[in-house]
């Protein structure tokens, strides 16, 4: 990371020119995107990225329409446009769709589309995983939205606080749709995050060290890591609330030992970092666009990157500032208040760096500039009101009023929607070479900017005058009438700007394709000429601003003079590079297009949604279809190609594929297990939180399972892991599958012992929150045993069919990782259940 920001250009290019005849045609054949309805089987990041962005924008429009319904209802007092019940569904869906189906997906979608080209890779490392994540989100999200038309949409607010969302006060299916629908869409977001981390760390162009990596890639790396640690909390929370609703396990019911605040902790441990998960990608885009429009490198670039990391870490100490009126201890609240102010410092570093860059450079006046200036104005105001609400007594005054509605819209629309619009004006030329209209852009901007401030600024005042959030109407004599009418007019003006943009975007995208070029004279690699296969050759990067500091790079890359101008194995490939120095390490062979990710995603979405509707048989059919499609997809992967080495440049021969810790799939499995461990930690936190509310633990009437059974269970798990370890050292031997199956027997027996222990202790999950929390930990371990019961026969089958070998052992190594993790988790849950009562004694 201490490499100089630029180095002298090497005299010799990686590959000689001219390139052999037929080389480009073979590359095109391998990467050609299917046409017609087969386009849906495409997994290339460009196709998936565009579909992903389009779907996210569709949800932005749909949720925006819901916002207009809200503003129509509130335009005048005592309005009967929407009934109270419908209004509850409308505002819940507005928040939920905006946050979960627009804001998070759109930032991941833009990254899926942009990052490979910006990093000089041909594609992301797991294209089928991207396709799966997209289709799961699109199918599940659209079905979830349609619940609104059946009156089944959730109505408990976008953060779904119990006890309102428990069965007592929300007896219908509405809340279940939120819990199961959103829960699995989160899984799709996590899949995207794993893809991005591995893509950023392992597939950068040779020479693009971490120090030279674009700020946007840094922002996405920080965000993806944040997703890995933040999203598990809400997945665990939704699982617990759904378990309460479906099986009467009283995690959040105070009179049975539960605690509604447990939900708030879990939700906001996700929910606050999520604000930054949405904002940081936008900040990364801003840091990419501003140097271009100012025509000068980003001022204090290293400080900006450090600030991104700082915001990411600080954001995990802020969750409880959403709970200042929930009755937390005054000291805890003060710590969170201090952290909420501390996070303003790294954010300010970025804002000042942007201002300085604009000041230093010569600013191009165009649509992106307008939206970036609009972003800064609105976001800074939102940030300032954020510091105001971090002051506890002020928050007590304005909590749950329209002041908060104003604040969050200033932060989210200012901090994210305006930069996304700037990004669309800036990057849309990448699609077909055409720019959006500058004349229309001025109209769009002023309608959106004016409409936004007209709509949301008055809300600060309505809030201070005492108007609470979520009321479906209000009396005419409260002094809120004029302000609400202004807000409603502003919302429609804002919507007119969005509609005008949509018309212009459709008009532009329908125009004939033109050569893209580099219309803004940008410095980043996505502006290199790109086709389905990405760049003609993978660039050698020697500078932080490659297109500025390496003036002949675009021509050389297009001529094929840089790395891998061909397909070395006759399949899709990219170059894997080392995480810090971006030194070429191996040739990463990528999978081609296929229907299985789409089938797996449709099955997953069907399983969750049909299960919610209590259509169990149909749901399980979908679930099994999803598992079958996933196994079918995995079955085709991890196959050694005949070639062991490939020449990617003159004098540079790389191994084809890698194994063990050198492999990108090994690291992806590790990250997946970190997510898994974070979900487990959330369940363990729930157990600790519920236990700490007791005077005596275990509570009267409950006992712990016998200690001997815990030892037996742990011993069986350890034995299983030893057998799997032996299996990893038995590659090519006949005993391998039998060792794995024996390990499975141990794991299943261990869980059988756990269940016997729970039965011996007479721990009924619906008896008390404490018993339910123990059952949740046990259940999560059980889920892993079920996973092992699928993986072990799969591994054995691969061994028997000859699909495990020295160069195709990723399946074995990765399943071994999952196995050892399950062992550790099993020992952890058995220990946690015993340790907490011991400590409380």
């Amino acid at each position, binding site marked *: *990371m*201490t*490499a*100089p920001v630029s180095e002298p250009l090497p005299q010799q290019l990686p590959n000689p020119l001219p390139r052999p005849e037929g080389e480009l045609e073979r590359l095109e054949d391998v990467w050609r995107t299917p046409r017609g309805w087969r386009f849906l089987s495409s997994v290339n990041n460009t196709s998936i990225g565009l579909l992903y962005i389009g779907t996210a924008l569709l949800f932005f429009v749909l949720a925006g329409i819901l916002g207009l319904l809200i503003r129509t209802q509130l335009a005048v007092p005592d309005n009967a446009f929407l009934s109270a019940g419908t209004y509850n569904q409308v505002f819940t869906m507005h928040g939920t769709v905006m946050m979960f189906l627009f804001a998070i997906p759109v930032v991941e979608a833009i990254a899926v589309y942009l990052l490979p080209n910006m990093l000089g890779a041909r594609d992301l490392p797991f294209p089928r995983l991207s396709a799966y994540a997209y289709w799961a989100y699109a199918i599940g999200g659209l079905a979830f939205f349609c619940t609104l038309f059946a009156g089944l949409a959730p109505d408990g607010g976008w953060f779904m606080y119990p006890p309102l969302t428990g069965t007592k006060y929300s007896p219908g299916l509405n809340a279940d749709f939120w819990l199961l629908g959103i829960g699995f869409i989160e899984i799709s977001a996590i899949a995207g995050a794993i893809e991005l981390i591995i893509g950023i760390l392992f597939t950068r162009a040779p020479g693009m060290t*971490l*120090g030279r990596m674009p700020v946007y890639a840094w922002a996405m790396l920080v965000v993806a890591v944040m997703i890995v640690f933040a999203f598990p909390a809400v997945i665990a929370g939704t699982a617990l609330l759904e378990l309460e609703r479906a099986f009467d396990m009283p995690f959040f019911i105070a009179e049975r030992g539960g605690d509604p605040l447990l939900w708030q902790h879990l939700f906001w441990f996700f929910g606050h970092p999520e604000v930054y998960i949405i904002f940081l990608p936008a900040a990364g885009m801003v840091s990419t666009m501003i140097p271009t429009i100012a025509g000068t490198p980003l001022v204090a670039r*290293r*400080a900006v*990157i*450090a*600030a991104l*990391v*700082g915001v990411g*870490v*600080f954001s*995990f*100490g802020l969750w*409880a500032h959403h709970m200042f009126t929930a009755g*937390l*201890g*005054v*000291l*805890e609240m*003060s*710590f*969170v*208040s*201090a*952290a909420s*102010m*501390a996070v303003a*410092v*790294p954010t300010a*570093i970025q804002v000042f760096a942007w201002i300085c860059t604009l000041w230093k450079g010569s600013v191009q006046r165009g649509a992106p500039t307008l939206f970036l200036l609009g972003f800064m104005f609105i976001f800074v105001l939102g940030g300032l009101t954020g510091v105001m609400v971090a002051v506890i007594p002020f928050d007590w005054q304005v909590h749950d009023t329209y002041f908060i509605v104003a604040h969050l819209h200033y932060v989210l629309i200012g901090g994210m929607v305006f930069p996304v619009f700037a990004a669309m004006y800036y990057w849309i030329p990448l699609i077909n070479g055409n720019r959006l209209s500058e004349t229309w852009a001025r109209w769009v901007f002023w309608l959106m900017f004016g409409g936004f401030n007209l709509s949301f600024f008055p809300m600060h005042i309505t809030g201070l005058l005492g108007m609470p959030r979520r009321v479906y109407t209000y009396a005419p004599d409260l002094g809120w009438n004029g302000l609400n009418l202004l807000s409603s007019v502003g919302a429609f003006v804002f919507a007119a700007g969005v509609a005008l943009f949509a018309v212009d975007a459709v008009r532009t995208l329908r125009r004939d394709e033109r050569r893209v070029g580099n219309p803004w004279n940008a410095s980043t690699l996505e502006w290199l000429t790109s086709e389905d296969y990405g760049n003609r050759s993978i660039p050698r990067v020697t500078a932080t601003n490659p297109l500025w500091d390496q003036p002949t790079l675009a021509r050389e890359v297009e001529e094929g003079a840089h790395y891998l101008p061909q397909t070395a194995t006759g399949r899709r490939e990219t170059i*894997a590079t*080392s*995480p*810090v*120095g971006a*030194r*070429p*390490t*191996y040739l990463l062979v990528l999978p081609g297009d296929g229907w299985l990710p789409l089938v797996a995603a449709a099955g997953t979405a069907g399983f969750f949604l049909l299960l919610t509707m209590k259509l169990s048989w149909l749901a399980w059919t979908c679930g099994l279809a999803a598992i079958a499609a996933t196994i079918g997809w995995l079955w085709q992967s991890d196959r050694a190609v005949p070639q062991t*080495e490939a020449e990617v440049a003159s004098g*540079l*021969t*790389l*191994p084809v594929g*890698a194994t063990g*810790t*050198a492999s990108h799939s090994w690291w992806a499995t590790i990250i997946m297990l970190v997510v898994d461990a974070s979900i487990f930690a959330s369940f363990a936190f729930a157990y600790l939180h519920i*236990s*700490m*509310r*007791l*005077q005596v*633990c275990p509570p009267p009437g409950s006992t712990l399972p016998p200690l001997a059974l815990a030892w037996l269970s742990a011993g069986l798990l350890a034995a299983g892991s030893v057998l799997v370890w032996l299996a990893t050292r038995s590659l090519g031997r006949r005993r391998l599958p039998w060792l794995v199956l024996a390990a499975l027997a141990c794991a299943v027996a261990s869980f059988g012992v756990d269940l016997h222990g729970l039965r011996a202790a007479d721990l009924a999950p619906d008896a008390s929150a404490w018993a339910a929390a123990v059952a949740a930990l046990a259940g999560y371990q059980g889920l892993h045993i079920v996973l092992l019961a699928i993986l072990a026969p799969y591994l054995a089958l691969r061994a028997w069919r000859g699909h495990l070998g020295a160069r195709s052992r990723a399946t074995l190594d990765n399943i071994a990782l999952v196995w050892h993790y399950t062992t550790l988790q099993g020992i952890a849950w058995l220990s946690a259940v015993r340790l907490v009562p011991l400590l*409380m004694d």
Partner: protein
Amino acid sequence: MTTANHASEHFFRRLLRGILPLLVWLLHFAFCYGLAATQCTPAAMRAGGPDRTLLGAATVLALLACAWLAWRARGVPARRDAGLLEWAGFLFAVLSLVAVCWNAVPVLLVAGCA
């Protein structure tokens, strides 16, 4: 032939060195919040509220750690060849020092659980 050699890059060691000050803040924050929350729950309620002596000691330790990390990196702004890692280490040390200082204010001013 070029071979994979991730180990020589010391990725995790460098990462840890860079973000060490932020980890100090995170540990300090988690300890303070955890202790205050624990000593105000029915299971471990402490008369008089959270133990401010213990909180104060942890805060002094964290401040010393951040100050030492900032002192160690004091030459970075003047160095023209300082890399991203050095800059990050310096900025994080200053940021963490500020954040721990702010965390110290409630320890000095606030007592009790209510």
